[in-house]
């Protein structure tokens, strides 16, 4: 299979692959290895005064993120891109682009959209976990 330049770049670099540890890390995973696609994200919320405010969930920022993926090159590339993009951004439980836009960005065939939905599910789960920690005042030291 031919892959786009962007897909190859993120797949080959594997940038952002790994795990985060510590109390301020929200983790979310989706899919299964047995099913052929599994993705996990770790999101750590940066220490921020805004975290103490009533609108903490919307204003907390992502201090670091990592991913693990047992998946095809397109899925790994999308997860790596997402992790790279996210640092410093507000932590909200949403993708920065729709699944279709990400598919277009990486030239992912339509048959593989289901795998991007697994990326989305894992990202949303990690985001919700991070926001929940942040709401309790737990952030990266």
């Amino acid at each position, binding site marked *: 299979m031919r892959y786009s330049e962007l897909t190859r770049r993120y797949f080959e670099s594997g940038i952002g692959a790994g795990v985060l540890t510590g109390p301020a890390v929200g983790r979310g995973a989706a899919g299964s*290895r047995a099913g052929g696609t599994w993705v996990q994200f770790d999101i750590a919320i940066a220490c921020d005064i805004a975290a103490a405010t009533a609108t903490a969930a919307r204003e907390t920022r992502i201090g*670091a993120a990592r991913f*693990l*993926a047992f*998946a095809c090159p397109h899925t790994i590339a999308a997860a790596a891109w997402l992790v790279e993009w996210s640092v410093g951004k507000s932590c909200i439980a949403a993708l920065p682009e729709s699944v279709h836009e990400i598919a277009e960005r990486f030239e992912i*065939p339509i048959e593989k959209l289901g795998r991007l939905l697994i990326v989305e599910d894992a990202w949303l789960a990690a985001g919700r976990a991070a926001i929940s920690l942040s709401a309790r005042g737990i952030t990266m030291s």
Partner: protein
Amino acid sequence: MSDAARPDAARPGAARPFGARPIYFDYAATTPVDARVAAYMAECLTRDGTFGNPGSRSHAEGERAHEAVEAARRQVAAAVGAAPADVVWTSGATEANNLAIFGVALQARTRGRHIITCKTEHKAVLDPCRELERRGWSVTYLAPSARGRLDPARLAAALRPDTVLVSVMHVNNEIGVIQDVAGLATLVARHGTARMHVDAAQSVGKCPIDFAGAGIDLMSLSAHKAYGPKGAGALLVSAARGVELEPLQYGGGQERSLRSGTVATHQVVGMGAAFALAAADAAPESAESLRLAALRERLWDGIRVLGATFRNGEPSDCVPQLLNVSFGDVEGESLLAAVQDELAVSTGSACTSSLGEPSYVLRALGRDERLAEASLRLSFGRFSTAADVDHAIMVIGHAVLRLRSIGGLCATAN
């Protein structure tokens, strides 16, 4: 915090020239035409050469072409233990398989409509069988053992009074397992009503073949797997055993009226020359067989240390040119993508679509879906070297460890 796969990690193959072609490990898919073969073929193309129609024997040009075709027929026959009269030229093994399967089925349709084959056959056998099923024939697909061999007792149990054809391949294209086709042919002959067809597309130059001695009725051959041209093949139709086929195409009556159409002189001359050269390498004790077996074991020894690696096919059952390995804890498409800039290999996934299906051959051997997908077939040939193998070990090792790390299945990739 730990980074599983650093972007600055050293990539394998840095010492190879930038833009170098991937090292070729896909000789089971096709081989380059031997330069000597190409020279013989070129002599049959232009005005100064043997360009005549081999069917036009009323003049010298046609007669010369006819003689070249017949010389090639003798070369092919000699390489596989057949009589020259057995050789029917085709465009390749796929056409030969179709001619054998449809030819027997149609010719024998009033006697019976049952065919037996194996689940691990090439699509060029399975698809004609499925088409016959759609037309009302009954087909039994036998499962091989976990080692890939067909148990003769299973074949014996499957034979019925209305069985007209048994089709079993000699050397499996994915795992390299050699079937005991002589033993199976004996069993079929004893049964009495069925013909035995063998797809031997992968066999020439890799292991000995004795068409007549094995008592086989029909055998498909391919030129391009043995350093000959693509678009050339043959079906051996045993004249001595009185095999009759219904032709699939008409017009001209060439090739005993079994395959009408002008014979492509340059193609069959190339096939004959390629087979004559390859036949010397077929014996297990030949220098080339021993060299390739050593390369195969060198590669396996280098790969097995990665752990969770599974060899598909027992080496004692297989041709020396091929190693098929399944990798645990690695996703198949990513594995291929991670090595394909450096290595030209085949995968356990049929990548005819973006969602590749796991290999049906490996699934039939009992490999689970993930392992069947995460498999690489590396096949060697005349131009393979120990340095190539060492590079492959490095590339595959790096890829597997990196992907396992990204998948959270080992501590570090680097």
